[in-house]
């Protein structure tokens, strides 16, 4: 009846004030075990104060093949950056 344990992604907040960051993945039968394993595998040396685990199948990822369509439009919108605007050097605090 062997059924493999599903894959989980692990996110760890290293200290309060910082966001959770992706640390890696692991296999576990359920969320509780994923949490326990994440603690043992990814925080043996005080690397974190909070852990999120989510089953990998619930993550929707963008495809690198769509990168042009997704990210290139931002490249020619230089007017979104402060350096686009010419101001005289005399203007202070801006």
């Amino acid at each position: 009846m062997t059924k493999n344990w599903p894959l989980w992604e692990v996110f760890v907040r290293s200290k309060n004030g910082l966001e959770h960051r992706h640390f890696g993945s692991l296999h576990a039968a359920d969320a509780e075990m994923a949490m326990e394993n994440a603690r043992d595998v990814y925080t043996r040396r005080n690397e974190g104060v909070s852990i999120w685990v989510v089953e990998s199948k619930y993550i929707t990822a963008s495809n690198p093949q769509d990168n042009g369509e997704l990210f290139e439009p931002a490249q020619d919108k230089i007017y979104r950056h402060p350096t686009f605007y010419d101001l005289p050097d005399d203007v202070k605090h801006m």
Partner: protein
Amino acid sequence: MSENEVKNLEAIFEARIARDEKIEPKDWMPEKYRQTHIRQISQHAHSEIVGMLPEGNWITRAPSLRRKAALLAKVQDEAGHGLYLYSACETLGISRDELYEQLHSGKAKYSSIFNYPTVTWADMGAIGWLVDGAAIINQVPLCNTSFGPYARAMVRVCKEESFHQRQGYEIMLTLCNGTQEQKEMAQDALNRWWWPSLMMLGPTDDASVHTEQSMKWKLKRKTNDELRQQFIDQTVPQADLLGLTIPDPDLKFNEETGHYDFGPIDWDEFWQVVKGHGPCNKERMNARVNAWEEGAWVRDAAMAYAEKQTAKKVAKAS
């Protein structure tokens, strides 16, 4: 995809690596890149997992609580390193089960050094000092390798590995400052682990079939011979400090090159061990396969419990 299109993609891919860009799992990659990485990363993961066995042998017999806690932590790290690496490998589209299957069937290799026995407590010192020392030399350049998940796993591994080597050297130091018998035990361990540690850094450059391609993909940043020389140069003074003698009559500092010259390595022994005829190959694989097979009911029970809990939740919600 036509042959030309593939060639074009390959050219773009090689250029990205040359620019030091990282390759991530969903990026297009040549099939050979994928296969080579599966082979190397899994071999690395298997080495961590099998590497727990020779040391596990001494956990219950460590001479003090301090030593026992440290050894236990080290072995636990190795399990962790194996898990980081298996996860990195799985991003290339191979399942954990297939990876285990390759290890258990003998299709995949692991570092040949773990096929030597650990007969005295001094072996725990020698392994930490020499085997982990050689591993660090091998691994540090991999923190910059081109495949993102592998590089990230290696950063974590390298951070943790330094304690392994230091605890090993401390064991050697304590033995060398002890009784005559203890010092002889340390020398004996060095005698047995020195040559296998040199072999661990891989066949000589002219006999290594993968070096050229691996250098191009930054899967390797220094050749086996360069790594071996580096290991010898930094280890000999450490042996001097312990008052131990490296078991190589030809070992001599070369003023001209600034490196140590060393005697010939017995590559026949290396290939014998790689091919499965080392002192403990069978024992290691039996232990590993038994652990996997005898744990099957636990894995099944955990899965059945998880499914039952989910079903209960669903029933409650509806």
